[in-house]
């Protein structure tokens, strides 16, 4: 039997996805496959189009490679638009020739709708769809100062961000009274507008453009129906999409009144040999302008062409989650509450800029839809409730309340049914993931490769990881917790070995419990454990070679091999005399000086041999080491508190100094930060710290396990209205429990998230002493406090330790020739050519 011919018109995301599905199916060998694309490039990821302006290239965004097409035996015709169909002959015509098909797939996508405004053909008017469009916008922006996006929907705001990134003053002009009218309600839209305007994008709603004419101060002027106008150098139209159905229309296929190629549940058009998928297809009177439904259609059609008669497209979830100009926006299901009897639960915090709305069924049992602005961390859980019809808890409002107000914990992976959709781009359910694991995938990377989950928009990454981890654990797959090749133990195990056996040196530990000589993973871990257990000087002969880069020289190494120095300034309180000493030292040694985020002063550019000399000066002036180099307590930040502030209710500075002096020097698995605020206004930002203390009328509220940095986490309220003594006792216990049980380089936030039982468990251990270890934890902490020494004071007084601070041991006066300097804004900074 001779082969049949399958032709796919349109080489976009959906067309490419269809080909991927089809070539992997059993029908593929029966067909010669041809793919036609109008653009000159191979299919690329249009969802992430804006990244093109951030430096991504076509290769970064490409869905596949030409080699892949060759390997699959697909004949690729790029830059070759199809101009006509001849359905009787089953042929199609392009400028280069005529081709016969047996089955034809239309994946022609959509085109941007440009409203019929006079002057829209002006050369500085654009649309936002293809890489060519973006190249043209970039060229136009070079000479311009401002740009307008017509349309305040999802794509319009993306485009506004792109204009902003090109250095233009960006404006958004929207016809409706609010932004994202499809996804958001009035309150959500208003909040989004406020946030976007804060970023410098000007929003103009309820504006209908009547004409585009030459501008006086800019290239163009837009006249609006209310007689106002706006001048701009370029205009990007993003006023919605229209299905690209021209070929279908011209060849007499059924199309919808407002466009779109009519298809049935099998994605077949009114001609049984012609099929349509993606944004060009009209199913049940609906066009789906998202990639996930297009992929679902592609999969359905691949099954249909493999004679699976039961394959059917049954609609798609249009929920979306995205970050627009840095603002989280989410919209789920029936976001506007159009279901009869639907009821609303709203949370609106104008202070923090968070808005959340749940639409629940009349009986309050199921979630119909939701709107989120400001914080999408609630999205995954809400989506799972909505998609799977999971019964809502008795207090559904907990799902959108901040956690500190008693919000519900996230829906654990065990609570999800097998049918729960984890990855909507590739339609992967929890059941699919379980199958992949049962078939041999033994880690996250394997599951991703087998199921393609999380390889589309990537929005489900965190959820996927929690499902995979949970399933692996249920199957008893032990994930190796060995520290490194030298120790078959976790950090927690090593801590126990050191503590219980009274081991005081690395050499003893590795000879009794490990093998080899150690490495840069295990040595600092053991150094830290030994310091926590026995609190000996970190530069004692046995401990020197264990210390991490910065601990070895008790300063922070910078990129050119010089160091920065951060003296301790407890609570950020400093006398003018001490401040003058810092200034004098910095001036004498020409140190670049910067105020840190932790209310201290950082002095940069000291050479190795200068460190002990500088510290002699600082110690003489009463300074101690600030441990900015250590995995240990950094600072306790504070606001000025009740001694000065008219709102303060407690002495926050006094408490911060007390805490800083108590916990300074303690070695921990990672750095630890604290803060104390004198009232609920929280000026010290305590809730972003590992330990945050906020004053109340009656004492102190303690928050634990917060985090700034790369992955910010709000601290959890741990105990309320504590006295000074109770506060310190509670922190002692949590700190010691963390130090003893956390993994290597695990911050308190991740530590707590990984504690089985989480916050509640920690409360039981610390507040109710459920493990009966609190007395021991306190005793250990007191021992560390009692044996504190300023490491720098001990070091400068010991000639043996000082010997290490020499650049070149045989030539003390030799300067490092690589360290070159220039002056910027009145201070010295390094010049270092990377080699």
């Amino acid at each position, binding site marked *: 039997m001779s082969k049949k011919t399958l032709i796919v018109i349109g080489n976009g995301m959906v067309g490419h996805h269809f080909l991927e599905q089809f070539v992997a199916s059993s029908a593929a060998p029966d067909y010669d496959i041809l793919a036609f694309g109008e653009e000159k490039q191979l299919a690329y990821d249009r969802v992430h189009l804006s990244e093109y302006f951030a430096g991504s290239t076509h290769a970064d965004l490409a869905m596949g490679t030409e080699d892949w097409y060759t390997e699959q035996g697909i004949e690729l015709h790029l830059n070759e638009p199809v101009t006509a169909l001849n359905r009787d002959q089953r042929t199609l015509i392009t400028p280069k020739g005529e081709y016969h098909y047996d089955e034809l797939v239309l994946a022609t996508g959509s085109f941007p709708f440009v409203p019929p405004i006079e002057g829209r053909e002006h050369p500085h008017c654009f649309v936002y769809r293809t890489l060519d469009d973006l190249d043209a916008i970039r060229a136009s922006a070079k000479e311009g100062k401002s740009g307008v996006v017509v349309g305040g929907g999802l794509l319009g705001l993306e485009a506004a961000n792109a204009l902003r990134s090109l250095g233009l003053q960006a404006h958004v002009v929207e016809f409706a009274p609010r932004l994202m009218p499809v996804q958001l309600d009035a309150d959500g839209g208003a909040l989004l507008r406020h946030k976007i305007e804060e970023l410098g994008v000007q929003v103009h709603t309820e504006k209908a453009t009547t004409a585009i004419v030459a501008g006086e101060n800019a290239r163009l002027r837009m006249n609006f129906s209310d007689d106002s106008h706006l001048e701009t150098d370029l205009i990007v139209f993003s006023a919605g999409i229209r299905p690209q159905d021209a070929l279908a229309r011209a060849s007499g296929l059924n199309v919808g009144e407002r466009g779109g190629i009519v298809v049935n549940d099998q994605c077949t058009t009114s001609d049984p040999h012609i099929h349509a998928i993606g944004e060009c297809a009209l199913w049940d009177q609906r066009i789906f302008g998202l990639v996930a439904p297009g992929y679902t259609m592609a999969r359905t059609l691949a099954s249909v062409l493999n004679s699976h008669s039961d394959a059917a497209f049954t609609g798609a979830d249009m929920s979306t989650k995205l970050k627009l100009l840095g603002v989280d926006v989410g919209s789920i299901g029936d976001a506007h509450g159009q279901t009869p009897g639907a009821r609303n639960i709203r949370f609106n915090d104008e202070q923090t800029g968070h808005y959340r709305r749940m639409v629940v069924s009349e009986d309050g049992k199921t979630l119909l839809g939701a709107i989120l602005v400001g914080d999408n961390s609630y999205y995954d859980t809400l989506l799972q409730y909505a998609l799977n019809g999971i019964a809502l808890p008795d207090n559904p409002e907990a799902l959108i309340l901040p956690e500190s107000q008693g919000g519900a914990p996230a829906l654990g992976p065990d609570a999800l049914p097998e049918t729960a959709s984890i990855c909507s781009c590739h339609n992967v359910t929890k059941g699919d993931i379980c199958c992949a694991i049962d078939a041999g995938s033994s880690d996250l990377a394997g599951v991703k490769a087998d199921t393609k989950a999380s390889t589309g928009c990537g929005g489900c990454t965190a959820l996927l990881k929690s499902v995979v981890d949970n399933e692996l654990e249920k199957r008893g797959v032990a994930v190796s917790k060995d520290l490194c*090749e*030298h120790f078959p133990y976790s950090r927690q195990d090593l801590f126990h070995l050191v503590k219980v056996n009274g081991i005081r040196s690395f*050499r003893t530990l590795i000879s009794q419990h490990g093998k*080899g*000589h*150690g*490495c*840069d993973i*295990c*040595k*600092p871990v053991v150094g830290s454990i030994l310091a926590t257990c026995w609190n000996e000087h970190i530069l004692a*002969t046995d401990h*020197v*070679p*264990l*210390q*991490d*880069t910065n601990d*070895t*020289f008790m300063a922070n*190494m910078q*990129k*050119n*091999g010089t160091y920065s120095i951060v003296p301790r300034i407890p609570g950020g309180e400093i006398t003018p005399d001490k401040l003058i000493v810092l200034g004098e030292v910095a001036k004498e040694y020409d140190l670049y000086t910067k105020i840190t985020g932790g209310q201290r002063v950082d002095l940069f550019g000291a050479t190795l041999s200068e460190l002990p000399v500088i510290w002699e000066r600082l110690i003489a002036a009463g300074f101690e080491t600030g441990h900015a180099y250590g995995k240990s307590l950094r600072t306790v930040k504070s606001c000025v508190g009740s001694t000065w502030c008219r709102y303060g209710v407690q002495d926050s500075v006094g408490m911060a100094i007390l805490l800083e002096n108590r916990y300074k020097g303690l070695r921990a698995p990672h750095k630890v930060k604290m803060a104390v605020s004198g009232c609920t206004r929280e000026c010290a930002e305590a809730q972003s710290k590992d330990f945050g203390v906020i004053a109340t009328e009656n004492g102190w509220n303690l928050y634990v396990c917060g985090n700034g940095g790369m992955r910010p986490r709000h601290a959890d309220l741990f105990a309320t209205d504590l006295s000074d003594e109770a506060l310190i006792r509670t922190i002692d216990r949590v700190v010691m429990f963390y130090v003893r049980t956390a993994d290597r380089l695990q911050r308190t936030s991740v530590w707590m998230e990984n504690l089985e039982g989480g916050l509640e468990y920690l409360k039981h251990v610390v507040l109710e002493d459920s493990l009966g270890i609190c007395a021991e934890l306190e005793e250990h902490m007191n021992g560390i406090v009692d044996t504190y020494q300023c490491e720098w004071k001990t070091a400068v007084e010991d000639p043996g330790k000082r*010997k*290490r601070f*020499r*650049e*070149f*041991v*045989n*030539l003390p006066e*030799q300067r*490092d*020739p*690589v360290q070159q300097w220039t002056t910027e804004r009145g201070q010295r900074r390094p010049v*270092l*050519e*990377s*080699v």
Partner: protein
Amino acid sequence: MRTRTCWNSVCTVDDLVPESGIAVWTVDGPVAVFYLPHRLPALFAISHADPFSGANVLARGITGDLGGEPIVASPLYKQHFNLKTGACLEDESVRVKTYSVLLDGNRILLETRETHQEAVAA
């Protein structure tokens, strides 16, 4: 033509730090000398310059062994270098210069290129 070399005393045993490195200045520029007392031989010398940052810092890295080979981890970006061969474990194309090093009584001798007066005159 083969480069002529010579042995120079660069420091004494007292300058060394067990299980760690120190830096010395030579005619070739900065060299890192490591003393790993639990190995035989116990002395290693490689260029002090970190090829990834250009900074002279390798003597200040953490030493140890990986797969039995002696290594130092750069203190800046943590790449590992084999102390015997100078090879970078993370990037095959990168290798730092190694030097022969000897213990002579109390002195540490390093082999570097010769810089005698007559060499200049010739």
